[in-house]
């Protein structure tokens, strides 16, 4: 196709890396390719990348460097936080609390822990996807060892009141661990774990224009969790395995970029979001789910399209060079309907008709306009043909 436009609105699935991220990774793979555990110069050079990345990350959160554990990404961070904390605290109790809109890497880990004999409470959310503090207060009991709540929901961009939740938990029992899945929030919000009562926090590299296959878990120094991966004792035994030096270097660089001019970047995302939401509202039979504007995450718009199947609309947009996702890309591997959308009470007819648009730093207002223009053209055609 000649002059094909490409509009990537699936940045909550993954992002294109910054050029500077690519450059530092190439350097770490080609010149400074040593193993950090080696005693010689090559090892020392490699270690420098890890140290710098750790400094960058710790600085962005105002925490200590030793509180950052590198992982293979968001899924591993969530697994490590939940299983590691549950194993470490099992003598204190066997009750964990989470919400009904978590990502599969929390949800399925909780299911695993349930099989291992832990008791799990799943908190409901309101129609905007926000968890109720009262329900949390009621759920906490003597046996509770951990609460895990996501910062920004990946499917609809609901923002949970993390600081209030942290305060509430600590006011009831300071020894309950508070884990936050911040995979969709880090880079969009300035997060201060120490002030928000967060003990454990998961982050992924490839959602912030960093590389895939790397992420980190913040572990407050006062918190003891058990490792879930064993081996050569790297990262103080918390996460064995040769450090992913290019990955960590890339992640560190992405953190530096994303938090440089942070406020401005976020403003730009909100501007894109407002523009899209406004345009969608002017189309017939389109419902934007959850809150919009500053009450919601800057990068995610979830919308239901009456009378059109999400998959069909997705492919029709793809045909015009626009890439979006149906539900969340992670749950799209298992067609079946999104847990979050059901959780917020989206009506049955829209469950299978919802698309997620998610922005990144490379998107422009022109792209939003183009997307709206294409939707305006496609929707009537697609609505004409449906299951008879």
């Amino acid at each position: 196709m000649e002059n094909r436009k490409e509009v990537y609105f699936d940045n909550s699935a993954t992002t294109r890396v910054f050029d500077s991220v690519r450059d530092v990774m190439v350097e770490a793979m080609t010149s400074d390719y040593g193993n950090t555990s080696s005693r010689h110069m090559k090892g020392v050079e490699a270690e420098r990348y890890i140290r710098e990345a750790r400094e960058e990350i710790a600085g962005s959160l105002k925490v200590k460097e030793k509180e950052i554990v590198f992982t293979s990404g968001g899924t591993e961070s969530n697994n490590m936080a939940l299983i590691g904390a549950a194993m470490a605290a099992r003598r204190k109790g066997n009750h964990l609390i989470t919400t009904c809109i978590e990502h599969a890497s929390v949800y399925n880990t909780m299911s695993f822990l349930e099989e291992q004999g832990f008791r799990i409470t799943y908190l409901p959310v309101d129609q905007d996807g926000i968890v109720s503090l009262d329900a949390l207060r009621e759920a906490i009991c003597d046996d509770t060892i951990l609460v895990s709540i996501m910062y920004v929901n990946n499917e609809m961009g609901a923002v949970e009141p993390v600081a209030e939740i942290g305060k509430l938990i600590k006011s009831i029992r300071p020894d309950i661990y508070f884990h936050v899945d911040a995979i969709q929030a880090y880079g969009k919000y300035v997060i201060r774990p120490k002030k928000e009562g967060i003990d454990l926090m998961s982050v992924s590299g490839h959602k912030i224009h960093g590389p895939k296959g790397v992420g980190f878990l913040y572990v407050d120094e006062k918190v003891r969790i058990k490792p879930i991966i064993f081996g050569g004792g790297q990262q103080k035994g918390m996460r064995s395995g040769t450090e992913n030096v290019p990955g960590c270097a890339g992640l560190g660089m992405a953190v530096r970029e994303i938090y440089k001019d942070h406020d401005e970047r976020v403003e730009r995302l909100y501007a894109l979001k407002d523009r899209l939401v406004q345009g969608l509202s002017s189309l017939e039979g389109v419902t934007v789910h959850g809150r919009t504007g500053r009450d919601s995450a800057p990068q995610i718009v979830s919308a239901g399209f009456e009378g059109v199947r999400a998959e069909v609309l997705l492919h029709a947009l793809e045909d015009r060079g626009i890439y979006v996702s149906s539900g969340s890309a992670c749950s799209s591997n298992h067609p079946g309907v999104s847990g979050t959308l059901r959780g917020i009470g989206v009506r049955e007819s829209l469950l299978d008709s919802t698309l997620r648009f998610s922005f990144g730093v490379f998107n422009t207002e022109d792209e939003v306009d183009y997307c709206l223009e294409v939707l305006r053209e496609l929707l009537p055609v697609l609505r004409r043909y449906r299951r008879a």
Partner: protein
Amino acid sequence: MNYRSFLIKYAEIGVKGKNRYLFEDALVKQIHHRLKRLEGGFTVTKEAGRIYAEASEAFDFDEVVNALQHVFGIVGICPMLQIEDNGYEDLKAQVVRYIGEAYENKNFTFKVVARRGNKQYPVVSDQINRDLGEVILNAYPETRVDVHNPDVLLRVEVRHKINIFSETIPGPGGMPIGTAGKAMLLLSGGIDSPVAGYMVAKRGVTLEATYFHAPPYTSERAKQKVVDLAKLVAKYTGPIKLNVVNFTDIQLYIYDQCPHDELTIIMRRYMMRIAEAIAKESDCLALITGESIGQVASQTLQSLGVTNAVCELPVMRPLIAFDKQDIVDISLKIDTYETSVLPYEDCCTIFVAKHPVTKPNLKRIEMSETKLSEKIDEMVKTAIETREVIRCI
């Protein structure tokens, strides 16, 4: 045991009279084709009703057996020790060595069956049987002879060289590909059509395939799935030329013009028409579908009749009387099941009515189709001309 060669048994083609050499040559060609991609430097030869595959260098035994088990026409694969005729005493020693290496546990009953292809050989078959039995019993006292129901049937064929073998690994059976002409398979992403293609190909038929793609209603992944399925079937049948026909416009046109409960049946009639046109272009002698009576609304006898009415070429439906479970069993055996059940929508179901007609009447369907007369011929022509061809190996 380090086997160097295989004796390949075939059954049906042994009885094909004067055409027999054609079938044998096709089988030799198929075996050669399959083995040349593997290590071993195999040569494949035929000799008086026998096919041999012989390695000239080291090879992976399991890999070679697996490859041979994908060649239609083979009923048995016998790993074989082939020796020069260096005298009767040497034969005895070689047989003892063979048994020693081929069977770790010697606690079995056996029988020796010798055959002299070479009647010049100084010892008669019966005597060979007795003498070899004796040396085996002497060498391995745990073994016993059982002439009626032996655990191990040791065959010794005295020909130009001497073949010693005792194990037969089953092959897929059927007839060698390339001996029965070519047919066009209507391949969807489901469980049935790959099995149907496999079954017909097993009778020696070369396959070509057609898939109907309906973007944006079916995804690029659905198409990839069909390509993957064609590749899996091609492991048995050799390369398959896959025609991918864009069917969206025709489908929408039918949707606009015809009653919705007849949508599926009319759509299938157009699929058959298009597949047949491509089939004729490629010199195919028949069409193949995965239909089975009553499986869905479009596969009742009435529907099959209405669909069939548009075709001139014979339509082969090898699964017509199979239960779903039987089809699933074959798809598991030929390794297409896992790919078939990947959840991508195919174009037959996207507009399916809540209550499609199950007993369509040919006259009425033909009447409905007259509403398409304005544009449909041109659309069919475009669909055929713009098809994408993918070679699946």
